[in-house]
């Protein structure tokens, strides 16, 4: 009985708080895994620093500008895609965390209810 009370004290006290913190940690971790900060800061940077140095003639300069623009566009799309994917996963993680934290206090009640249903039919 003492242990049951201790369990309930923990579950509805520090345990719930811990679960909430873990949920926040999951969201932060997912966001970190996609290094969103770096991707945003370098969103328009050339892809892997692939750049063409401008030549002397106007034609070369135009060609270099075009090449570099393409590199930046490729970089933008790759990063934007990664950011989008990261955003979706972060949102999913947040949703999961929210559900878990919300469901946390209900879980023991669900246990009691399911025992009751399994017995009463």
């Amino acid at each position, binding site marked *: 009985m*003492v*242990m049951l009370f*201790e*369990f309930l004290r*923990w*579950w509805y006290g*520090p*345990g719930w708080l*811990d*679960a909430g913190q*873990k949920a926040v940690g999951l969201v932060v971790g997912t966001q*970190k*895994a*996609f*290094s969103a900060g*770096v*991707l945003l800061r*370098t969103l328009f*940077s050339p*892809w*892997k*620093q*692939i750049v063409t140095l401008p030549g002397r003639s106007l034609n070369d300069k135009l060609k270099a500008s075009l090449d570099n623009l393409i590199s930046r566009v490729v*970089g933008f799309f*790759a*990063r934007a895609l*990664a950011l989008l994917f*990261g955003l979706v996963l972060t949102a999913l993680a947040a949703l999961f965390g929210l559900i878990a934290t919300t469901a946390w206090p209900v*879980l*023991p009640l*669900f*246990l009691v209810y*399911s*025992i009751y*249903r*399994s017995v009463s*039919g």
Partner: protein
Amino acid sequence: MNNELNLSSIRARKARLAAKIGKRGQRFLIFLVVTLGLLGVFLWLSEGFKQIGWACFAAATAALITALWYRLDLTKPAPIAHPDSLDDFLEPSLLASFKKGLPITPQVAWKVSTGQWQGRFLCNHLLLDMNSVIQTLGTEPQDMDIVWRRSVDLMESSQTRQVDAGTLVVALITTSNATRDLITKLNLKETDVLEVHAWLKRLSDYLDEPHPYFGGIGRDWAAGFTPTLDRFGHNISQSVEKGEGHYHTLAHADVLDGIIHSLSQGSSGVALVGEAGSGKSSLIYALAQRLLKGQDQDLLYYQIVTLNASMILSSAKNDLENLILTLFGEAIHAGNIIIFLDDAKLFFGDGVGAFDMSQVLLPVLQNKRLKIIAAFTPHDFQKLKSENEALASLISPVNIKEPSQDVVMDILEDTALTLEQRDKLLISHQAISEAYKLSGQYDQDLAYPGKAINLLEQATTYSQDHILLAESVQQAIEKMRGVKVSKAGSAETDVLLHLEDLIHKRMINQKRAVEVVAAALRRGRAGVGNLGRPVGSFLFLGPTGVGKTELARSLAATYFGDENQMIRLDMSEYQRSDGVARLLDSGVDKSGSLIMFIRQQPFSVVLLDEVEKASDSVLNLLLQMLDEGQLTDSNGRVASFKNSIIIATSNAGSAEISKRVGAGDTLDKMEKPLIEELIAQGLFKPELINRFDDVVLFRPLDKKELAQVAEIMIQGVNKSLAEQNISVKLTDAALGAVVTAGYDPQFGARPMRRAIQKMVENSVAKKLLAGQVQPGTIITLDVKDLS
């Protein structure tokens, strides 16, 4: 707080429940959650099985709740804010190991704590036999009072919040007199136990640390490709990410801040200036880890690439400049690279396999386009400064100093864990202490911690039954350095105890001189001498040809294993003012200096002939050498004489010795007045005389003794003839004739060599050439046969 262990407390019950579930139990619970959950859904959806479905849900939920409780609370209960009994302090797995109802005595506590990994770690690394220790511990519950108090004290002093099994083991060992006596017999001290406890704490802290975050997807997308750098360099940051290489931040944490500050503030070059082995490379690994952690915004996720000088040189013999430009170009273009030049002198044209890239590097550093860290020894950096001032001015020097003994020991312990894992062995604390001690004593080439790590690594090949002992380290240094440090075996003990007899086999008379040096040798070998000074230092006074040099040679042969282990300097060549400079020359540019010789042969007899003829400044230098056992070369590098025997010889006072011996005085009697007289004459300064362990007088040899010298020399001739299976023997009359010819009261035994050569060797040579001697013949020479 009371000293009671309440095993009925909530914390104790939780600990026992956690132990019952265990990791396997947790895995089983998760398995139940998944399978019963899925089964429940299936049954709940099936007509007629809803009730069983609910039962499955109930079981799955119970399993999930238990698994969560186990994971988040039972295994790591939150610290008690206001602890009032012992169970509030005990680490859960230790607490769970105490059985309810069983009285807790020191013996019970020992069994419980050594059943945990922390307890075993401590015992194993101190090489303690757990069964022997338990016999020395108390058997009464009240004996635990002092143990618990000590445990809590240890916990507080190590700034932890729980008493783990390791702490309890330390408390048990250090509070029992009988156990303390036992560890003393094992040549361990209480400080050794505490050191291993601190080592255990560092390991526990490391294991509790979360896995470091080194940046996520897209971290390097803004950085350029580096195909040439990848080929000619090694990416240290990638190695760190993979967990390769052992490195530490214990020694130079403050230096890391300095480097980051320099590179962040616009300096494009940093020189790590420290002796080889002081931890420059290790520091770079630590820097790479710190940059990967992304804590320094100006150098966020920078990667460190070290260049391979030999590979660059062998691949681009004729087009070196272009290759260097390509490498630097890629690093600049990538935008996240710091180039590390290990042993940087190789990149500035100094040494074998070196090339000079300073002309390419100079504009790069001037434009601050690339960040470079170069590792130099103080001598190499000094050289760069004198030869290329412009380049050196662009590099901010950061001095890497040798860490303190405590820090070196911590580094060694952490390195030992890596070696244990790599080589599947156990490295004892005794082996680590021995590696520290012996590397300091016998390795002059490297600085700490490098030299101690090096020795420990070498010693792993001498482990016994996968355990590295102090003896393993001794064996390693004996093999590496050719010295004897392990306890003398019975054969060697026999030699040491009868040294005088052995030396007298090649030395005639000079009993006192032989006794004095033999005693020094025994002191050195037994390790009872002063470790801060040379093994022995003697001033030999006496006439020419009485055996001074021969005794030095015998000493080299007996103590260092070879009579060629002798550095001989004629001090009459050091009379001029440049004497000091010549002695202290590092030998890098010129050869033949004392410093260079001692570095090449640190285990030698240093024989300083005619010491009184050296200039005053040279003699002052000798004072330092005799006193501190070291000299500092022209580059500020210390050369140690602590493993050498220093013998200075002089003929000063030889006339007086001969006169007094002739008058029947003993050497003991004449020693003091003779030395006083030499000091009064200004031949020796009292401070020099006092620095020697002993001043030894050699007396002139009489004719009878010279006959013995001649016999020894003829034995030498026979050794040469042995190859031809021929030997020579002198009749008594012939021997007498040789002694008469070789005797000179002024030069002692010195003319004897010439006399034997002339009279004996020439005669034998003639007989050999004339074909008068066949193999197996013993040539007997009489007076008439002598040339």
